[in-house]
């Protein structure tokens, strides 16, 4: 059993903070909780720097805050999409649950988002299990399309049940500043908040990745049938991964609502802004890695802002045409995302070549 898990680990597509090379002779892993915590803290410090440096520049602080928020949710998506290999395009559903429920509870009952964020996340987790249970039978592109369908259904329902969601009018949260309300006059506090969330999200991601669940997820990603044959309860693994991912995503939705203070169906369900965005950020950063989604967010979000402001005097749509073109180029030349690019340049010499199932010798171990 041990060796199979090691083999599963070897087969993992991306790297992590350190090289995942397994000593051919021993099956000991290089990552220990201590080394992990060091790396995590170190990276959190790095991550905090932009917030610190840019706190006094209002035009930057918005971009920073939004980047961290999107990055954090991309990290959440990555748990099931990257580690688990289940390419979900329906995470907008969980995001919107967090958004709508937070807004409704705040507006109607005055409940502070600090209190409601976790219970709502649990609801989102439950919903995710309910809708994923039947859909996880599907693989690959079929799964993706099914999750896409969920997103569309939610859009129609959100528009229709306007007593709950404000329908097409949306919900607007009045500006009642106060820490308890999670509404700040000082814009930089949002950046701190989003940083905190990003740190939390990455932390959860690290814990999952190096836990048993994490390895099970990797195994399921690599070869579902093989994993099942090894005794892994594939469905439970997928559902657990999805639940954690959904809960984090919903928390992102809560923060999004308190940050924007205005949500409506177009804002929440436009695929290219929300649903697909998390997947895209993870892909460009390096899917399946821990840092990848954050790197992807750090690259894409400020850049698309930059393009929009630079090209706003040109023909309409020029900024997005350029962005789309660059996305295609990025896909072609950075096949493993930014993280993969780093790995290629700085990866350790004894990094194992990506083996296919055929090349794993009987008895486990690296090729």
């Amino acid at each position, binding site marked *: 059993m041990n060796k199979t898990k090691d083999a599963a680990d070897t087969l993992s597509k991306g790297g992590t903070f350190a090289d995942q090379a397994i000593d051919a002779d021993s099956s000991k892993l290089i990552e220990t909780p201590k080394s992990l915590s060091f790396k995590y803290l170190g990276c959190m410090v790095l991550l905090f720097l932009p917030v610190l440096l840019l706190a006094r520049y209002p035009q930057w602080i918005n971009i920073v805050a939004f980047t961290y928020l999107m990055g954090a949710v991309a990290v959440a998506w990555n748990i099931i999409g990257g580690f688990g290999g289940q390419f979900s395009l329906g995470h907008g559903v969980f995001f919107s649950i967090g958004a709508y429920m937070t807004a409704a509870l705040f507006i109607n009952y005055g409940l502070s988002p600090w209190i409601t964020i976790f219970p709502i996340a649990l609801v989102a987790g439950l919903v995710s299990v309910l809708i994923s249970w039947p859909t996880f039978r599907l693989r*690959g592109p079929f799964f993706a399309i099914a999750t896409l369908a969920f997103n569309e259904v939610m859009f129609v329902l959100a528009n229709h049940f306007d007593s709950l969601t404000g329908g097409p009018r949306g919900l607007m949260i009045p500006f009642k500043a106060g820490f308890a309300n999670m509404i700040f006059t000082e814009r930089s506090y949002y950046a701190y908040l989003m940083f905190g969330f990003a740190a939390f999200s990455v932390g959860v991601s690290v814990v999952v990745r190096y836990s048993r669940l994490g390895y099970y997820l990797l195994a399921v990603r690599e070869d579902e049938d093989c994993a099942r044959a090894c005794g892994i309860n594939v469905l439970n693994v997928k559902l657990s991964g999805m639940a954690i991912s959904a809960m984090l995503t919903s928390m992102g939705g809560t923060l999004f609502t308190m940050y924007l203070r205005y949500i409506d169906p177009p804002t929440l369900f436009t695929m290219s802004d929300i649903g697909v965005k998390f997947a*895209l950020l993870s*892909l460009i950063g390096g899917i399946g890695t821990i840092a990848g989604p954050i790197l992807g967010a750090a690259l894409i979000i400020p850049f698309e802002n930059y393009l929009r402001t630079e090209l706003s005097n040109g023909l*309409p749509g020029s900024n*997005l045409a350029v962005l789309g073109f660059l*996305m295609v180029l*990025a*896909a072609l030349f950075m096949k493993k995302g930014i993280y993969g690019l780093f790995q290629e340049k700085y990866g350790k010499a004894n990094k194992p070549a990506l083996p296919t199932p055929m090349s794993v010798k009987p008895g486990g171990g690296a090729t």
Partner: protein
Amino acid sequence: MDQILNVLIIGLLLGGIYGLVSIGLNLIFGVVRIVNFAQGELVMLGMYGSYFAYTQFNISPYLSFLVVAPLVGLIGIVIQRFVIQPLRAESNMQIFATFGLLMMFQNIMLMVTKGEAYSIGGESSRWSLSVGELSLSVVRLIVFVAVTLITVGLHIFLNKTLTGKSIRAVTQDKLGARAMGINVERTYLLTFGIGATLAGFAGAMLTPIYSITPGVGGNFILAAFAVVVLGGLGSVWGAYLGGLIVGVVEALAGYYIDPVLRSAVWFMIFLVVLMVRPSGLLGMVGAEEVGFREQN
């Protein structure tokens, strides 16, 4: 209840539109196995192409498609060769790339048109046949006839010609086809080309029916995916029937329940089919077991 015949006819004609848009996607999806987000944009390009031919050269879409469709097909081949093919080991990146293409195409057309909507067919699209109490729009009837002919033609092509059979072989078992000496990469190129041509043709046929905007492709793409899954991977008749079923269900739901909920209704049905019979109506059983691994 007296309108039921009318509703059914409307549903069938609508289904014809769905089928036409989906048939190219079905082919591409079945063979190349990617979620091609940019498919709707290929239809959109077909629409703009016919619009251009009509306003600049006064050629009707029912004639200009002979040029417009192959041009779109060419774009498809370029996409396959330079974007999809190099990424065959990274299926997630393929999705990312097709999404980039979607953004590119939509926004290039936005730059060209500056956001103005276009329409044609003021004169010709007025024709409608009256059969007793029923009214049939001629332009939609043409679409229905076209999609039927195409389906038949494709069926013959896929079953009776050697090239067609090689396409089916690749759909069923890529490794086995390669072992039989079929050039899989060339098959991909061919399939994408045909699929894109069909999308362009659909665009031409739809030009007299809808307002043309850069985002018009997005109105069809989800329905198209639903039809493809419903009909079954790799089955041409599946796409055709799937389209008709979706069209009829949507028309019935819209008329008898509520027009606003119509898209949700067939999406729910689509989800149910996915759960109960994921291979679709006429698809190959076990097709849903396709994993990303198979892309290599």
